[in-house]
């Protein structure tokens, strides 16, 4: 890969594009909201397998039970169904055996209850809280690590890029009304790790090149460094995406949301390392002197 791309000429339009997508994502998250699964909203989930039935007959049986908000949909195979019952205010504890009994009595076919989950309101609130805390903490930890290893400009730049990735990934989930559950939080955290990984590789090279060519502007340095590491960036993205696509297509219904979030995250994370994290250094007026100053401080 010897061709040089002129990334720096695209920085301005990329920044406008990023801002636009970021703002749109934020608007979606704030106004349309996120589609929380029972992990975070509380409620009951039942996955069942039954031939000779359909979503509408299951739905009509459950509607008669007066359970509140019930959703029934196909899940992967045509004979698999996913039922979700929203948390009701009234503390109805024995809702699961009731639903099971009602379905067994009324559907004239054999039912295999494959998965049953029930999350109470207290636990779901705690899970959401700890999910948000985990993501915030990981961002803070990254900020701190980069701050130690590089200078504060780099640390801030990488965090803005990470924020960009997390918000856009969640924005797309909001736009497509995809479910946010525990595994999506895991995916977001992994995206944070992956995107950081990508950014660090480019930053490392920027630092090296700043020392090597102190006549070049930061835009030129960024451009040079992105090109230097481009082959690696692309190859690693490809191998990671190959693994993720394999999970997405063959890993079954339960891992689909997780692998989709990861695929989005890898693409966005790769983009942001090049088009967000690197150009941002210009705004902080990073030059080779930025590095020197720090070194002087360390060696008095």
């Amino acid at each position, binding site marked *: 890969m010897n061709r040089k791309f002129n990334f720096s000429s695209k920085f301005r339009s990329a920044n406008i594009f990023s801002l636009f997508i970021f703002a749109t994502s934020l608007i979606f998250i704030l106004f349309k909201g996120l589609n929380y699964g029972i992990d975070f909203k509380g409620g009951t989930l039942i*996955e069942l397998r039954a031939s000779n039935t359909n979503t509408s007959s299951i739905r009509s049986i459950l509607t008669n039970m007066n359970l509140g908000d019930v959703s029934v949909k196909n899940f992967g195979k045509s004979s698999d169904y996913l039922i979700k019952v929203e948390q009701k205010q009234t503390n109805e*504890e024995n809702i*699961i*055996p009731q639903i099971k009994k009602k379905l067994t009595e009324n559907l004239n076919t054999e039912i*295999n*209850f*494959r*998965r*049953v*989950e*029930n*999350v*109470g309101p*207290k*636990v779901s609130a705690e899970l959401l809280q700890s*999910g948000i805390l*985990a993501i915030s*903490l*990981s961002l803070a*930890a*990254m900020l701190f*690590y980069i701050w130690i*290893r590089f200078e504060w400009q780099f640390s801030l730049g990488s965090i803005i890029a990470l924020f960009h990735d997390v918000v856009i990934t969640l924005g797309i989930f909001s736009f497509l009304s995809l479910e946010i559950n*525990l*595994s999506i*939080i*895991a995916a977001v*955290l*992994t995206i*944070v*790790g*992956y995107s*950081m*990984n*990508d950014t*660090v*590789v480019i930053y*490392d*090279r920027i630092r090296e090149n700043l020392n090597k060519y102190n006549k070049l502007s930061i835009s030129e340095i960024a451009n040079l460094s992105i090109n*230097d590491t481009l*082959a690696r960036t692309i*190859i*690693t993205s*490809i*191998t*990671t*995406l*190959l*693994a*993720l*696509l*394999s*999970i997405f*297509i063959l*890993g*079954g219904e*339960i*891992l689909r949301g*997780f*692998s989709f979030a990861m695929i989005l995250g890898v693409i966005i994370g790769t983009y942001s390392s090049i088009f967000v994290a690197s150009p941002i250094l210009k705004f902080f007026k990073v030059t080779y002197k930025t590095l020197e100053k720090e070194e002087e401080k360390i060696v008095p």
Partner: protein
Amino acid sequence: MLNFSKINILIIYLVFFTIAVFSSLNFQDKNNLLIDKKINLGLDLQGGSYLLLEINSDTLVKEKIQGKVIPIKKLLKENNIVYSNFKINNQTLSLNIDDFDKFDLIFYSKKDNQVNPYIDNYRSFELEYKKISNNQIEILFSKFGLLTINNSALKQSIEIVRRRIDDVGTKEPTILQRGEKRILVELPGLKDPERIKTLLGKTAQLNFRLVSENSEFGTEKLISENSESLNVSKRIIMSGENLIDAQPNINNQNNEPTVSFTLDRLGAQKFGRATTDNVGKRLAIVLDGEIVSAPSINEPITSGNGMISGNFSFQEATDLALLLRSGALPTPLLVVEERTVGPDLGEDSIRSGVISLFVGFVLVILFMLYKYKIFGLIANTALIANLLMLIGILTILEATLTLPGIAGIILTVGMAVDANVLIFERIKEELKTEKSIIHAFDTGYTKAKITVLDANITTLIAAIILFAFGSGPVKGFAITLGIGIITTLFTAYFLARHLTSIVVLNTKNKEIRI
């Protein structure tokens, strides 16, 4: 960077083989275990039930504060403190007293304080009081007093939950404390947790109380099993604590399922006395505030053996006997979270997990071969070694593999080659300017080292945070991802580097291309 001393090589391969060999333990013959270590399957893969139970100590606190009424009154009288307007509120007591200083002195006395004991562990008294107005005070449990009640209730509950679950006979249950109020129960292989939930949902507080003719003071109205309204005395003759055994039986006369019980010595005495004194009266057997049955006392029962009948089915009798044997829970338990996976879904998950792992692995390997040829082969060897070590470490730790955990392994496969890609790309760059091939490889490794380390530490940080905050299956993901990073660093930096050095050093004068 390409020079390895013999001892270094020895250590590298020794570490690799020692760890990798553990991965084979997972394929041992079950009946003939050499070393009993293997990766455990999470509930989402083997099927089973996960329950999170929460104790509710509110009623317990209420009972405990009521229990303090008499000792406090006695204490006040003994010390000639005049009190009035003594009220029992929900979880507090309020009263008017005349001498605050004196009260304060005896209330917070560390020596032999029976009413308000000093808890050494927490350096705090069990109770505390607040001044509400000029002469009125409110007595309540201190923060640590509540904590003590809570802790002991939780410990006791765990013990009883364990007894009940063991009695049902599920295989390898896990019962653990989670936080200050919760009990985690994992029941592998259990398909339907309803029976266990029902058994754990009952406190099973059993007591024997006399039935009165009329609704005099100290009685309450309870509905009997055949919907008869009875006035039952609040005075407890004997409670379930005195039971040492209970078994389900079939009554020979009418073929009805019953529960026969055996009392300890103290219980037998109490029961004997009460039944002797009250022949002809009816005795209510009350379980969790509901009358199970209220038979007439025909003759004194002094043997310490008795029988409860009450229109049970045999299952109900069996469950009641089990509950009575295991003892009463100090507080009701609420199921706050439940996750059950059927065994066939678990099998499906394993299958799709393994297939996607295999396919992802093959795709990555083919891509690396295409991209880097001979060095791709090295990267792939490192990748296989990486997987073996990852599985080996999971085996040594006897970690629990979950479906997201398998996803973590696949992701490791995709990201593990990154270290080698970084190094190879760096060497490529060096080869452009550097004449000596060996030198180019050497600088490539040296320069890439920092980057590889930085890049992997960031992912490791994410994995550690995920491990700390994640629950159940997500924790499994964090484990495989985190260990994957460590094995990746090892294989890329030691194994792959050594293999590269063999290739480079043996083709000294020929053209080497990456």
